[in-house]
């Protein structure tokens, strides 16, 4: 048996609104993942509500600055620090910002 899941593409300006919607239905943030693309990055936000696996894709350019969702989902801080440190994605207002000291790595933004 294979799990079906939703993957919806949204604009980065709707990120906080989407997070609020997810919190409103009682979903938990289960992961955030970044993928390098030709023009920038794909950001994949995943939520779980009961057994429903809900995913949102946001495509951004290298220079786009996004807002943190730590004010809505406090557990986002680890994912967002990872995105910032490994991919060089600009994120403002992270509740606990490690300033690129989350991982002990020799190469700056290895996935960029």
């Amino acid at each position: 048996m294979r799990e079906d899941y939703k993957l919806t593409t949204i604009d980065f300006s709707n990120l906080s609104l989407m997070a609020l919607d997810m919190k409103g239905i009682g979903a938990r943030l289960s992961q955030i993942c970044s993928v390098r693309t030709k023009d920038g990055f794909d950001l994949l936000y995943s939520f779980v509500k009961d057994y429903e696996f809900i995913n949102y894709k946001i495509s951004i350019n290298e220079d786009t600055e996004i807002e943190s969702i730590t004010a809505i989902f406090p557990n986002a801080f680890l994912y967002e620090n990872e995105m910032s440190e490994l991919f060089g994605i600009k994120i403002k207002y992270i509740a606990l910002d490690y300033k690129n000291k989350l991982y002990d790595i020799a190469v700056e933004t290895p996935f960029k």
Partner: protein
Amino acid sequence: MSKRSIVPFGPQHPVLPEPIHLDLVLEDEKVVEAIPSIGFIHRGLEKLVEKRNFHDYMYVIERIMDVEIPDRAKYLRTIWCEMSRLHSHLLWLGLLADAFGFESLFMHCWRMRETILDMFEASTGGRVIFSVNKIGGVLKDMDNSMLRTFVDMFDKMEEEVRQLTNVFLKDYTVANRLKGVGILTKEDAVLYGAVGPMMRAAGIESDTRKLGYAAYGDIDFDIITGKDCDSFSRCEVRINEIFQSFNIIRQAVAKIPEGPVSVDVKGNPNGEAFVRLEQPRGEAIFYFRGNGTQFLNRARVRTPTFANIPSLVKILEGCDFADVPILVLTIDPCVSCTER
């Protein structure tokens, strides 16, 4: 207000099973804030996957390539998954006993775990990392006499495990260290994204195995939850999951069909997929994006411990300094997998 002090805790510390670092902000003996740091053993696994072939990751690749594996392989994977849960939970119980100073209990837990590892070795050749899965099925079969022998061994082991776990559940010294300590409410478990026994101990009825991957769709089992949301509840959930695993293995052995254990898979993955699995420590999420070559564009692994670190930070707030090692243990941390 008492004077605040910061105690660096880990990554190397005698009471820590894994190298996590916490900056503990204390007021007298109370922790008022805990700031976690990982990265001490980061190995760049997700980056390395871009430069080597994808053959170590079956479930997601099978999903992207739309491969249906034989039923016997599904049952074998289920049996090995549950054996992994058994050895992982016994390992955790041993570490817990060691953390509160019950050395003989620790040794008995690990003695029983050794039996499981011996069974892994007999059936796969490996003891912990057994590399028996492949894209399209499994590399080795277990004949029916081996499966029956395993079930007989589990029948005998179950009684021994019950005696052992009774100590955890009924001994007042264990209860004194665990009851009412490190409470994570149901609401906080959702807010902080807890997974696995950590989440279920908070009363949330959710288990990714219920999605029915491998042979779990054919197996009858209930989701084990706790009600007190504390460290004792997390211990109780893991103990009950041990007996549940014995039961799942018995069902899987009784129902396993005859037939091949793998299918040939040709080509390279082109596309993307998410897969969720219930590992012993909780839900793991894999996201892969292939490009039609033998290398992947992206391989994302979100381990259960990574998801449980924010919950750990939450339960450390307000705890006694002396309870920190126990609370770190109750998330069953695997920092090596978390850092990838």
